[in-house]
């Protein structure tokens, strides 16, 4: 692992900063935070890539995008070539360029990053996808001859879209079934507009549609049709239905008006566009003092959404310390820049409310860190007698989710683990039920977009083998 990187003789180019909306402006709007590279900035950043013979970045990518190749295209001003390279491995470049945790994947392994800041791979991916969408010719990647095989994909989140994008290029017929009225799964109901504009998700879905993927929305597999019924019409079924039921804190007062799960809060705001109420009919409580409970990316999204809905105070209340926050660093910084206040080592005990049911506060306990627990993180222990009250009118509970039983309960032959997640072979995505594959949060529990996409890639390879060779 010795570094024999021949530093380029030419003048060193610093990592090109992504232009973004100033924090004090963006905290009041739902527009996207990063404004995107100009072609000039992108080409300059692309020059920083040293085109390693043995590119580490690619090993860090769950879908194995040929990163040096697409960056080389950008460097040469061949933006169409760049998107073609990306599409070879990734059906969702505009999404992944925005929401992947690049710092622990491709950019985390970038050789340039050993001595300098890594090449801004995510920003470049976003640039290539956006340039294609806004200025590109109407090009599509080549498709294999039709095989006559049919695949049903249940769920249109990142796992399902990846499976669909892969298999349609390999000549199979693909139909996606989505329970909600719009495709995209968590990309459309969960991730906020300011981080992933819904027009971009729609464009990625339209791209798949142009390739021939059929979308059936309002289709709640498990209720409207069972997996066994799908197996009568399709040669293979992929289940990428996501995580499901939100967890609550299980403390008194969670019924008060103004207490939300992050799923509900974000779904109202994103999918139903409650931030445009009353133009859109779905309402949302526009709290002045909002507390979000939890420390993951979804908690950051919720706290930042609260600011944009007009909150004067937006707290993140987290029972561990800053070091233990599971959210991406970038998301934490964005939240802090915008004015989100963190209350670490604090755990809620009960919600307080008025007689007619409106939330007025939350009683909390101070915590201190004890011995490491099963997750390796130090376990928070309550400090006796440290109760105090935080005045709030809105609470967003963002502590994860458990598996939704709606589909799994109606599918005999699937094997579930003790948490209700589907058991699937990590190398193939095969479940214990013949001709059924699964991937994403319904298998792993709540994780990231790109890990779900990666699971989709693994499953699509296995499904293709099965449809082609019968194994």
């Amino acid at each position, binding site marked *: 692992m010795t570094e024999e990187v021949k530093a380029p003789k030419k003048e060193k180019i610093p990592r090109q900063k992504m232009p973004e909306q100033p924090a004090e402006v963006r905290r009041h709007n739902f527009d996207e935070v990063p404004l995107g590279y100009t072609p000039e900035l992108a080409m300059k950043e692309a020059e920083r890539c040293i085109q390693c013979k043995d590119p580490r970045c690619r090993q860090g990518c769950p879908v194995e995008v040929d990163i040096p190749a697409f960056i080389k295209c950008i460097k040469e001003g061949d933006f169409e070539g760049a998107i073609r390279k990306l599409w070879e491995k990734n059906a969702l470049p505009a999404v992944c360029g925005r929401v992947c945790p690049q710092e622990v994947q491709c950019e985390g392994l970038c050789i340039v990053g050993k001595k300098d800041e890594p090449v801004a791979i995510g920003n470049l991916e976003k640039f290539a996808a956006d340039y294609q969408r806004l200025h590109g010719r109407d090009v599509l990647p080549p498709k294999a001859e039709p095989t006559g095989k049919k695949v049903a994909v249940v769920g249109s989140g990142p796992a399902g879209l990846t499976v669909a994008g892969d298999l349609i290029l390999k000549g199979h017929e693909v139909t996606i079934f989505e329970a909600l009225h719009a495709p995209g799964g968590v990309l459309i109901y969960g991730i906020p507009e300011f981080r992933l504009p819904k027009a971009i998700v729609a464009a990625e879905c339209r791209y798949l549609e142009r390739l021939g993927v059929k979308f059936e929305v309002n289709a709640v597999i498990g*209720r409207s049709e069972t997996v066994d019924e799908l197996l009568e019409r399709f040669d293979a079924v992929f289940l990428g239905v996501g995580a499901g039921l939100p967890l*609550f804190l299980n403390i008194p007062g969670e019924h008060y008006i103004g207490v939300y*799960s992050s*799923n509900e809060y974000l779904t109202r705001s994103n999918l139903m566009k409650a931030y445009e*109420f*009353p133009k859109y009919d779905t309402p949302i409580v526009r709290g002045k003092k909002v507390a979000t409970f939890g420390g993951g990316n979804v908690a950051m999204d919720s706290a930042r959404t609260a600011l944009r809905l007009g909150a004067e105070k937006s707290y993140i209340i987290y029972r561990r310390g800053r070091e233990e926050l599971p959210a991406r660093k970038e998301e934490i910084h964005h939240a802090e820049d915008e004015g989100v206040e963190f209350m670490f080592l604090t755990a809620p005990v009960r919600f307080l409310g008025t007689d007619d*049911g409106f939330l007025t506060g939350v009683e909390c306990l101070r915590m201190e860190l004890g011995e490491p627990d099963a997750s390796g993180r130090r376990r928070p222990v309550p400090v006796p007698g440290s109760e105090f009250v935080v005045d709030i009118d809105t609470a967003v509970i963002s502590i994860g989710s458990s598996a*939704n039983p709606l589909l799994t309960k109606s599918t005999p032959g699937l094997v579930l683990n003790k948490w209700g997640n589907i058991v699937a072979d990590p190398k193939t995505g095969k479940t214990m039920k013949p001709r059924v594959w699964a991937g994403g949060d319904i298998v792993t529990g709540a994780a990231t977009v790109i890990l779900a996409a990666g699971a989709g890639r693994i499953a699509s390879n296995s499904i293709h083998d099965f449809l082609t060779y019968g194994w």
Partner: protein
Amino acid sequence: MFEIVERQELAQGTIISNWVRAPKIAAKAKPGQFVILRANETGERIPLTMADTDPEKGLINIIYMVVGKSTALFKTLQVGDSFLDVIGPLGAATHLEKVGKVICVGGGTGIAVLHPITRGLKNLGNYVYSVIGARSKDLLIMEDRMKAVSDELMICTDDGTYGHKGFVTDKLKETLEKHKDIGLAVCIGPVPMMRACCNVTKEFNVKTLVSLNPIMVDGTGMCGCCRVRVDGKMKFACVDGPEFDGHLVDFDELNLRLRSYLPEEKLSYDAFKTSQGHTCTCGK
């Protein structure tokens, strides 16, 4: 798109019945299940329990009271118009079994929800007493359809303009006193009515099903908006319900959460009425 093929105004135009073309849902739906509807791109997702289905024609029947912007918008849809989205069937189907004698009690649009359950119980060979009620004769719905699926039908109106003058609980109590062998009650209607019915059936120790209508968003268990407290535990009406053992439901909490968006609902409805020109017959 889900076309309306038949439309009827009931109860002086305060309640609307639609037969909607949704063949996949009609083929699958069972008594007690609901659908979520959205009128247009800016619309809310509104859950409504199906009053009936016609699998052969591929139709479902929804019956709703006009109470706010979304239902007022639904009311503007005429035969030939369509709902943008209809999602379902959702929720757990009613567990129907032969008990012997049962009593089905419905109030307001709850009668629509009660109807397929009553028919299901009747078809299994149960002897069905039904009690339906409304504030006044003009507001009573589905008398004929309930009569067709009941062995004995009793009618109550608050003002005495039709049938027994008084609440459905009067007839419920009277029937339970007369027929000690009634083994199941199904009570569906406004929250205060269901609560009052449960108080009566508790006295007689008769198992009671209620169908709850909390506010919902996705209807598939994802958001947790429809959480209700049953036997001290949190349940999601969309996946665990909408039916629950009425003796275990925390009606106070349900009532409170149903009031979550009263100011927003009023604002939205007022704006809609202004935009439509106020043409309804409510006299305001």
